[in-house]
């Protein structure tokens, strides 16, 4: 357990009950369920009525249409299946940061638990893939209470130790999800989306300060490409966890900052208003870039801050 971690806090059951994964359009489970799926199959909604062909199930012959036309007709239905949800949770060292109510990783843990509880409803299945630790944790998609317990155990195992640099771990996890899933489903990505920003920012810094105002100055990171590939088949919910302190630098004089992942040390004079202004602008540009990458991937974007009630913020975006 990471130092300073307080856990996700109380998750109000009533609030969770009121939520549902309405954003998922298509299911793909083996069992009949509530989500529409691709193709044809059993369901309640009629897709079309067509002439009977040899091999069709005679039980689906529509008597009224057959009588009207004099030719036997069958009904095709839109298949309705259960939903498979994949949770991709970033547990890299940069998630162990929080200056308001709790750490970013605590919020991520809570979001993962709530999504899991919503996902296993109505015979749904949920799978988990963490990224950012040397050994990624992985739960194959299953349903039921036992899976929820396993999910809770995997999520509370904490974040990566400082000094471990995940090389495109988020992108690799997203690609792995793409390989593992059979049919379309829901993919929920919980991260701070700070991966691969060092190179992008260095490229922006070379252009000078002007580069920060322009999101196009940031190159498209690998995770954005992987997410765009996922977005073509799945519904993607991207939960970005942020801390208010990351957006602005306080005026506290000379600072020695260390990157939790790379361990790179930066000395900065935070009493310089110019520096603080440029930092805020650069962070804003980074957030804008993340936003545009997510939009380009067709993902639904939810921003959740470590201050305030994360459950309500999540609920607002899920309803």
């Amino acid at each position, binding site marked *: 357990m990471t130092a300073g971690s307080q856990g996700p806090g109380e998750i109000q059951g009533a609030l969770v009950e009121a939520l549902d994964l309405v954003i998922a359009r298509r299911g793909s489970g083996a069992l009949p369920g509530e989500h529409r799926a691709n193709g044809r199959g059993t369901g309640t909604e009629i897709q079309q009525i067509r002439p009977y062909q040899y091999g069709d199930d005679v039980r689906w012959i529509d008597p009224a249409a057959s009588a009207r036309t004099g030719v036997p007709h069958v009904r095709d239905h839109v298949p309705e299946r259960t939903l498979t949800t994949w949770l991709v949770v970033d547990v890299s060292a940069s998630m162990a940061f929080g200056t308001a109510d709790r750490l970013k990783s605590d919020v991520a843990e809570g979001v993962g638990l709530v999504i899991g509880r919503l996902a296993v409803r109505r015979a749904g299945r949920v799978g988990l893939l963490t990224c950012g630790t040397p050994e990624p944790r992985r739960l194959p998609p299953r349903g039921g209470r036992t899976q929820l317990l396993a999910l809770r155990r995997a999520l509370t195992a904490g974040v990566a130790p400082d000094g471990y640099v995940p090389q495109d771990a988020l992108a690799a996890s997203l690609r792995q999800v793409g390989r593992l899933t059979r049919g379309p489903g829901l993919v929920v990505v919980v991260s701070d989306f700070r991966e691969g920003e*060092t190179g992008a*920012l260095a490229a922006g810094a070379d252009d000078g300060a002007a580069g920060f105002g322009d999101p196009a100055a940031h190159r498209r990171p690998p995770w954005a490409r992987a997410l765009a590939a996922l977005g073509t088949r799945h519904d993607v919910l991207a939960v970005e966890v942020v801390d208010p302190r*990351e957006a602005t*630098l306080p005026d506290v004089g*000379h600072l020695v*900052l260390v*990157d939790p992942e790379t361990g790179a040390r*930066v000395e900065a004079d935070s009493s310089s208003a110019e520096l603080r202004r440029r930092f805020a602008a*650069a962070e804003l540009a980074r957030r804008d870039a993340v936003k545009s990458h997510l939009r380009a991937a067709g993902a639904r974007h939810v921003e959740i801050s470590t201050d305030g009630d994360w459950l309500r913020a999540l609920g607002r975006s899920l309803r």
Partner: protein
Amino acid sequence: MSFQAPLFLLGLIAIPLALAALWRARRRPARYVVRFPAAATVAAVVGRSGRVRRIVPPALLCLSLAGLVTALARPEATVAVPVEKASVMLVTDTSGSMEATDVSPSRLAAAQAAATRFLKRVPKSLQTGLVAYADAPYTVLRPTQDRAQVETTVQSLAASGGTATGDALASALQALGTRDKKSPPAAIVLLSDGASQTGRDPAEVAREARTAGVPIYTVALGTDAGTVSQGGQVLNVPPDPEALAQIAQLSGGRAFRAEDSDALDAVYETLGSRIGTRKEKREISAGFAAAGLLLLGGAAFTSLRWRGRLP
């Protein structure tokens, strides 16, 4: 540059030691660091100026250390000091062969120009005299500080007649006055384009000059292709560097050879710094100490300004 106390230069070892200590201190995990996921953004914002600010104060400190240690070793610089009351006689050949145009514009004109430049270059305290000669020395100017007079005389020289080098040197020696061990230094610069034809033997005068302590610097002017036309006849007038070299060697001076006006200028430049000045060692510790202190101040200022502490 030399040092009066070079042993103190061992103190320069302190600089690599200080750099190694700094490097170690920067590698050691600092006690007061803040974990910050947006550190990469801060690094990008701080950018290159941040790296400069990390490097400049220690660099200034090391330079100041180097300056102060060097000052401790008491460095000396060799400087050219003008010699007091030194005198030099310019002995210039104005024989007919000086009209040859193998040296542009002509041997005599090149010699005049070079002599004028020489007079401008040498220190003010140097006394210069002039002997112009052809069949016999005809213009003798005693050593004087009046440059204008010498210059006008040089400009008014015209070429004609033979070459009486020995006599010219003798009158130059005479113009320098009676000399003993305590007399201020003196030298003769002989510019000629041929061997002595009439008058005394130059070698004999050169020996006299040596006893008087007057070195004769000789300049052989012209190329082997130099010609003059005399009465409808074209005569080849090559210079005689061997004879001049002998004069220089006998008197303790040096022989030069100039085949064009640029070379002549170069020769006169060498002579100007050789005759008019003396090499002297001066201690320059104060300059190093001042530079060291300035750099120290710069290091303290930049470090306080940028990093809020002394380096």
